[in-house]
Each structure stands twice: as C-alpha cells, then as structure tokens.
C-alpha cells in the first residue's frame, strides 16, 4: 500500500471506533424495565414468564424483532418492543445471553408424565435442533430448564401461529402435530430433562 493511502486507511480506522457486535453494558442499562418481570438476574419468579438468562443471543434478538413487528403476539411485549431501536435490541439480546443460566425451582415431580414427555420429545425429534441436552445451538434456543407453564404456552402459541419460527426452524409445523397431552408432557419433561 502506498504511504498516502496507508495514512488514509489509518485515519479511517481512527474515525470509526472498532465496532462491537453488541454492547452488553448498554444492554444491562436498557434492560432495567425488563427486570420487573424477567428478574434482575434474568430468572423469573412468575412461572408464566420465561427466564432469559443464558438464552441464545440471536434467538432473543429475533423475538424482539418479532414482537416489534407484531409477528409474535403479546399484549405486554409488543408495546415494550415497539420502542426499541435495532441497536437497543441487539444489546438486550447480548446482555441476557451473557447471564449465567440457572434452573428455576422445578414444579412438583410427576415421574409418569416425565417419561411420557421424554418419549414425546424423542418422537418429535426435539433434540435434533435443540441438541441432546436441550441446551440449544447457534440456530435453536435452549429449551431445558424453562418452567413447564411457559414451555406449554410457547408450544401452544406455535401451534396456533401466534408466533413465528426463527431461522430454519419449523416450530409452527412441528407444534401443529402436537396433542394437548403431548404439550403438557413435553413441557414438564423439559423443565428438568436430566
């Protein structure tokens, strides 16, 4: 590279601070209003509300995009997300993804239903995208250690197309084939799949 252009290139580097994919600290600040429901550590007390701690970053960001555009329906989340800029939304995803994932207190054990859920999850091949430990992958969210109440609602929402799939996922189609009993069993099983 000729010196003049090298100098220009160096100037360009100074002009643009090194871009970060997302700013976790900015996300933490912006997340304050979220914590009332989702918990200060991203773990919720209300069992109908999902814990976000340690969830996959891209998944969280896509959900906010879906709420913002109305493709995922929620009376509470749609107005919250409507105000978010792309940057805020990226930072929020990065922040919640950075928190350690902790299992919420499990509901009462129901061994028979747990076994049914395990069978149903295998039958519908949940693990092929969400991985054998249901901790998720780049392309699919963690689904282990969410409350049974929330997981059941999520599956019902997918089944009735109240929320769209992310990326390659075909959750609407998968959930379209689930019975009420299967949803109940899978949701209980995934609360503690070990």
């Amino acid at each position, binding site marked *: 590279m000729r010196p003049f252009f090298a100098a220009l290139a160096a100037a360009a580097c100074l002009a*643009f601070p090194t871009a970060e994919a997302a700013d976790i600290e900015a996300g933490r600040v912006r997340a304050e209003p979220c914590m009332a429901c989702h918990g200060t550590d991203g773990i919720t007390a209300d069992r109908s509300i999902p814990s976000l701690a340690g969830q996959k970053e891209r998944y969280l960001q896509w959900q906010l995009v879906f709420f913002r555009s109305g493709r995922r329906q929620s009376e509470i989340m749609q107005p919250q997300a409507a105000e978010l800029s792309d940057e805020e939304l990226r930072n929020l995803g990065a922040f919640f993804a950075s928190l350690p994932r902790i299992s919420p207190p499990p509901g009462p054990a129901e061994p028979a239903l747990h076994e049914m859920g395990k069978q149903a999850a295998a039958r519908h091949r949940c693990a*092929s995208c969400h991985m054998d430990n249901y901790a998720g992958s780049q392309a699919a969210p963690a689904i282990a250690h969410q409350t049974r109440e929330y997981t059941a609602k999520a599956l019902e929402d997918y089944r009735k197309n109240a929320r769209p799939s992310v990326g390659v996922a075909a959750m609407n*189609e998968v959930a379209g084939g689930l019975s009420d009993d299967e949803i109940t069993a899978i949701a209980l099983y995934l609360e503690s799949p070990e």
Partner: protein
Amino acid sequence: MSGTSLRKRGIALAALAAAGLALGAGPAAAQLKSYDSSKPSFWKNPPPDWFLGDETEGQKGLAPPVGPATPTPLAELQDNLKKIKLPPGFKIEVYASGIPEARQMAWGDNGTLFVGSFGAGSVYAVTDSGGKREVKTILKGLNMPTGVAFRDGALYVVAIDKLLRYDGAESKLGAMPEPTVVYDDMPPFVAHGWKYIVMDKEGAMYLPFGPPFNIGIPPTSLSQIRRVHPNGLAELVALGVRNSVGGDIDPRTGQYWFTENARDWVSDDMPSDKLNRIGRLGEHFGYPYCHQGDMPDPKFAMGHKCDEFTPPVLNLGAHVAPLGMKFYTGSMFPAEYRNTIFIAEHGSWNRHKYQGGRIVHVTVDPDGKNAKQEIFAEGWLTGAQEYSGRPADVVVAKDGALLVADDWAGAIYRISYSR
C-alpha cells in the same frame, strides 16, 4: 441446499399437519435422522426438517445457522470490510446498508437498484442522488421474493410460485402499482422454491425450479429450469438440476449458464457444487442420479451412469453454495476480466469447517472448456462456523464496479478498481 438460510414460513400447514406422524415413533434415546424420500408422500407431506438428511454420527448437529436479527450497523460493516482480501488495485466499500436479507439485485433504467429478499418478504429500492443513497422498502409481505429483474420500465419479482410484473415501477417507488401475474404454473413448495430471474435479450426469463428436499425423486414439475416468456408461455430448457439460485446469459454466445448447489449429507468434501452451461435445449444435468459429473448417488442412482448426463463446466467445491453470478461486461476492471464470471458463494452449513462465503472469479471459453477459478474476494468467514457476511448475489454497475448483496449482514458492497 448448502448455504441458503432456510426459512420455512409459508409451507402449507395442511400439508404438514401429518408431519409429526410421518416422523415415526422411535426409541426415547436421541437417534440419527433418516428419511425415506423415495416416495411422493415425502414431498406431498414434507417433514418440518426437510432440509436435513440421512446423517452419520459425525454429522449430528450440523444445521443452517441463524443470521443476525437486524441488519449489521454501518460501523461494523466497515470494520468487517477491512478484513476482506482482494487482488491488487481493487477496493471494497459499503454501498448501502439496512437491507434485511438482501438477495438478487437488478438495475432500473434510471439507476434505481432493486433488491429482493429471503424470509423478510420485502423488495427494496436503493436510489442514489449525488452519491447519497436511500433505501426504501417498496414491497412487503411477499413469499420469499428472492428474484428480481427489470425491463421496459417494469419490475419483475418472483415469489415462490408467482412471477409478478409491476409496470412503471421506477417512477412509483412511493406507492407501487398492483402487480400483473405473468406466470404462475409453478409448484407451491417453499423448500428450494426460492428463485432467481435471468432475463435474455428477448425479455424471456430463465427460472430455476429446485426439488423440495435434499435428495430424492422429485415431482416432474421440479428439478429443472424453465424459460418463461413475458406473455406467460414457458418452455423447459434443462432437466436434472438441483437447487439453482443464480445464472446469467453469456454475452459471447447468448447461452444460459447457471450455478447449482449439490446435495448435502454425503460428507464434508463430497459432492462438489457446480457451474453449468446449457449447450442445447433439454439437457439433463444429473440430479438426483449423478453429482459433480462423476459421483453416482449412493441411494438414487437408479441404474444410471454419470456419462448419460451433461457434466459441469466446473466443480466449484463442496458446500461452497454458489448463488448469484454475472459475466463481467463492464470496463472499469482490467481487460482480462471482460466476459469472465463472478460468482457469489453463500458458504456452507452442512460442513464441519465452513467454506465459501466469498466471491470467486472464473475464466472459461464460450464452449465451457479451459475453466478455472480463483478466489476474488474473501474474509467473510470468521471462524470454523461463523460468518460476518454471506454474499448472495453480484451485479455489474453502470460504471463497471461490481456490487455484492449480503443477506446475512443486510448490506450491499461495491468493489471498484483503479490502477
């Protein structure tokens, strides 16, 4: 279907309602996937995970990655482009950003750049007044409108099973007219149903029809390329084609050349994706019987030999995912680039160490002989399975620069040359 960031929205729910049952009851333990795609029931009721295939233990967990939820911000794009390597004399810059899932590009007569998209369902117009570029979303809610073309003032958009024409589009960017359906004799499958449009000098449009799965015996209406006339008449011009999402007319001969994504789930290094040329009407390019010109399919060769089929002009590499391509017809680049080919490689997903995610340059004789490729622009692959961007299409600008659409970062880049 290497590389395409599949989104399944839009496959008829009715067709999928039985999918859960079709998957069969297995033991509770995690099992390897396998699919019986040898029967019509497979594509009539495709399973939700149709893009997956018979996997080995070593291939478990390979799946198309999820792209960023929002377009990459300008500062980050500029940072990414610093890592792009080009031949001496070339430079790359951001042309436009904030274009979610940008796919095929087409120029309007008055300099508007029209851009299709994948799951975003939108068509965009990038206008340029004195170097200041503005991105407008001009169409929304279409079913994977990946392919766009422009002629005589009209914008053509292909959205899975509809080829639409918007008359007087360039002067109506603020409020697009209702479209005319030019052609809709197309299967509704979303799987490999996203298309690319190449218009020849008569205004006829080459459209690819991919099979609705990884590998199998497809319905007779698919796995082919058709040439659709502006009056809605169509002819079959090529058979035995898997997922093609790119092509161009050779300015030297008027013949149609196209890229093709080979089947997945054989291995990291087999089979190769291809560059093809249609030398005569109705040629068969081998799918599903034979891949890369010399590899009979392990399950679906059906007794065929590879020498029955038209071999590729060039094997581009396994899982590189060649999408949009163009013959270079500009005058900005050095003379040796004239009438050579640029291909946007979207990059792998069905491979442990991704490859592709770059622009390759192919020099080749008009009859397909003496083909050789070299890497032209690379650096969007940032880890074994990580991208900062994924090239999806290229187009030559009026000034001879090469524009690159990136559907991962939601941006368009400009590659220019000065000695």
